[in-house]
């Protein structure tokens, strides 16, 4: 097994052993509570969508709801911050330094582990949404159509993918910040940046710079959805490469 794979494996193990990482799994409560609420005709949880919802449509709606809750972005930024900033601060990153030697592998391994963790959570969210759709929500025929997907499936998958990409961008961004800032500061700065990204996404001309713009387009049923998603994909790759490159450069120069 090569060194990057070993670090990634160890980082994944650490992520699943840390209690703060488990907070991210509370995202699975969103489809659970939503499906239970709708089935029991709760006054708090209501569905105002056009027509009955499919299983994939429900999963897509849960992604959008989790994104709009913002708290999961904060939790993810804290997890990312703790993975790097806290280890730099308490010097436990030194466990790697003279055993690995090459610092870019340490940064790369940590980032890769976080990306895998994020995708794993996304997959769990899709699976939980589908499971609770068929186990619970299906008992409310006013909301659930009972079918797996319909003609809107392409758009719904795009919406899910766009939300996943946004979390990946969050990881790239916070990893970069964590080379310089402490965990809590990373979370604070990320929250401010999120608000700025939100504002930018509504300003013509510069809205393409904000990743939230692409999520807005993806959820708007607009005709530009495919073009916008491809653009978002390219945007995420560019941001990923750029931020990772800067992050590696920073960690290679710094005193650990």
């Amino acid at each position, binding site marked *: *097994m090569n060194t990057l794979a*070993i*670090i990634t*494996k*160890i980082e994944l*193990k*650490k992520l699943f*052993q*840390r*209690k703060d990482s488990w907070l991210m799994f509370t995202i699975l409560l969103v489809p659970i509570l939503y499906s239970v609420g709708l089935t029991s005709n709760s006054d708090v949880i209501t569905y105002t969508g056009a027509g009955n919802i499919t299983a994939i449509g429900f999963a897509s709606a849960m992604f959008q709801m989790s994104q709009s809750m913002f708290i999961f972005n904060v939790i993810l930024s804290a997890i990312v911050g703790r993975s790097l900033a806290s280890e730099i601060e*308490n*010097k*436990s*990153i*030194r*466990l*790697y*330094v*003279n*055993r*690995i*030697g*090459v*610092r870019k592998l340490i940064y790369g391994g940590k980032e890769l582990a976080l990306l895998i963790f994020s995708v794993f959570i996304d997959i769990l969210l899709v699976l939980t949404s589908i499971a609770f759709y068929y186990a619970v929500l299906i008992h409310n025929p006013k909301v659930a159509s009972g079918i797996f997907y319909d003609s809107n499936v392409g758009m719904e998958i795009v919406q899910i993918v766009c939300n996943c990409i946004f979390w990946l961008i969050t990881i790239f961004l916070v990893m970069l910040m964590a080379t310089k800032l402490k965990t809590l500061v990373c979370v604070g700065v990320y929250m401010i940046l999120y608000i700025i990204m939100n504002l930018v996404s509504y300003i013509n001309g510069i809205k393409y710079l904000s990743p939230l713009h692409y999520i807005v387009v993806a959820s708007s049923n607009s005709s530009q959805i495919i073009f916008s998603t491809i653009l978002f994909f390219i945007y995420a790759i560019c941001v990923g490469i750029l931020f990772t490159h800067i992050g590696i450069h920073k960690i290679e*120069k710094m*005193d*650990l």
Partner: protein
Amino acid sequence: MNDFSMDICPGEIVALIGENGAGKTTLLNIICGYSKPSAGQVRYKGKNIVANPLITREFGVLIEPQFLDYISAEENLRLLSQLTNQKQDTRIKELLEKTELYSSRKKKVKEFSFGMKQRLGLCQCLLTEVGFLILDEPFVGLDPIGKELFKQTILDMAHKQNVPVLFSSHDLDDVDEICDRVVMISKGNKQLDQPLEHKQTYTVKIECTISDDIKRSLIEKCGELSFFEDKIIFQDETLIIDIQKILLQKGHYICGFSVQKNNLKSLFGMEG
């Protein structure tokens, strides 16, 4: 560090001493590759460690030992052994037994005392084959048994496995006991780099009434002697009989007599 240069030979135990903030830990951090030197270089087996960072894998390092405190001692060691891509269960067991941590191996590291963490740090740095052992204040916070264990480990590594050892310490007695050479740092500069050759030497003090006439006679006969208040102080214990003869010939009585094995504290004038 300013204009600092030193080398260490295989099997040599070198101690870094100096006041707080002198630069001991900074020097060790640079050697280990934790900090990058703004100028100059650290060479190991002829290779610059900045250009060849992989070479630091051979270093056994104990500088402020770091652990993942939310997992057990054994898991911490297992995680580290994965980094070297080797199965080292036997080595882990052996080290935990050696450091008397075997019974606490399942405990989370956050429940460990400072001394236990220091012992676990020793396990970490000896987990793989070590080519160069670097320790920062290794004896701090250890009980006498732990201290002895650390000292024995250092001596074994240096004298049996021919591994060079560099450690920093504030305790001159510990330094005196195990090291071959001492390097003193002050404000980032090397103040002293000296082999500890005094280990088998003695300081003799004879107490009596000393007149100028006696001083002259003693210096004529015995060469270099020091006089302090009513004491004649010298290093060569074979002179004792000659000095005694001169004093008796001049009708002087010896009021006090002491022979002390020389140590680092006496070298720095901190004793007696």
